[in-house]
């Protein structure tokens, strides 16, 4: 039997198998596929500079298990058009940000999930005086291959007591002012510390937000912002 004959036999056999799989369907919608692609672009856009020099994507898996400031979180499942926060089995929390709106609500939702955080959209915030809180971001930020795809992780247990994780996300603008993605930065700050916020010089949007600004556009400058945007 030559290759062509073997191939023909295989074709008949395996095509029959395929046709017998009538109960096998991919249940995900086209919208879910597009959302996945959008999230992918977000994560890629987020790779880059940050207040702490740590580049991360917005797709975050936040490890809420363990001791430290994130003890006893409760399961959270909040899915808005702009972003999602979902507790996962094993004490993980998945955060997906698609639009930079409602940072206050995102911060509150993260807190409910066990993640003490300061969320700033459109700017990065660091501690105003002295160095940022003690703690090693390497102990907080990590990567896992859960689900076969790398996800960024944060371990709240690695956040020192009395500290919060500052999460800043800004749009990346193309030279002609079009939004081209996001950039993000993470830092550890002492709880209640005064923060200095700035728009990264190469990430400014055309609306005129300037570097050194201590508050978000359209809202009072927070001396110690819990969230801004």
């Amino acid at each position: 039997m030559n290759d062509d004959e073997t191939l023909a036999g295989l074709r008949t056999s395996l095509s029959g198998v395929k046709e017998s799989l009538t109960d096998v369907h991919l249940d995900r919608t086209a919208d879910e596929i597009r959302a996945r692609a959008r999230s992918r672009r977000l994560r890629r856009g987020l790779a880059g500079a940050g207040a702490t020099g740590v580049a991360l994507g917005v797709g975050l898996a936040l490890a809420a298990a363990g001791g430290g400031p994130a003890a006893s979180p409760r399961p959270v499942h909040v899915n808005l058009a702009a972003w999602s926060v979902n507790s996962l089995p094993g004490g993980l929390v998945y955060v997906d940000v698609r639009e930079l709106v409602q940072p206050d609500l995102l911060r509150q939702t993260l807190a409910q999930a066990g993640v003490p955080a300061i969320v700033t959209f459109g700017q990065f915030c660091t501690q105003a005086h002295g160095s940022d809180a003690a703690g090693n971001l390497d102990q907080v930020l990590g990567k896992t291959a859960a689900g076969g795809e790398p996800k960024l992780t944060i371990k709240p247990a690695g956040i020192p007591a009395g500290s919060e994780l500052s999460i800043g996300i800004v749009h990346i603008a193309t030279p002609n002012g079009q939004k081209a993605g996001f950039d993000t930065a993470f830092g550890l700050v002492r709880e209640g510390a005064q923060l200095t916020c700035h728009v990264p010089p190469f990430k400014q949007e055309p609306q005129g937000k300037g570097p050194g600004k201590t508050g978000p556009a359209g809202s009072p400058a927070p001396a110690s912002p819990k969230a801004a945007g």
Partner: protein
Amino acid sequence: MRSWGVEQKRREFTEFYAAAKDDCLRIVLISVGDRPLAEDLVAEAFTRAWTSWRTVRDHPAPRAWVVRTALNAHVSWWRRRRREVPLAEAEPGVTWQPAGVDDALAAAIRLLPPRQREVLVLRVFFDLDTEATAALLGVAPGTVGVHLHRALGTLRTKIPSLLD
């Protein structure tokens, strides 16, 4: 407000996805034998198809493009998993066997080297000829012939009934 071009792209992709997703899933499922993994791989492939929609739309065999991308993603997934997940933490594989299929045949196909399996899947399920398969894989037609010959030789050895 979305432009007409964006709406057209969405509509085209939605139609293609609805028509092709189950077929692609079944082919990938036969190839990898793990339904959750197959679903993830096909979703990943369609995600890339949406990202590169113009390329896929104009491709002579868009479904073959998706399946080939899914199988490539499987290779990448496995390499990444092997590198990042400690063996002790690795989940036991969830194997799946389609009803009615020859166990030995399915197992033999899954044990083929990735490129041989890729060539076999494209030739069997999409009826692509050597040139089309070579173009899709970005290799020479002779390379396709070699991989196919080796794959069929392995299957003949392991599945004597193929010689009947």
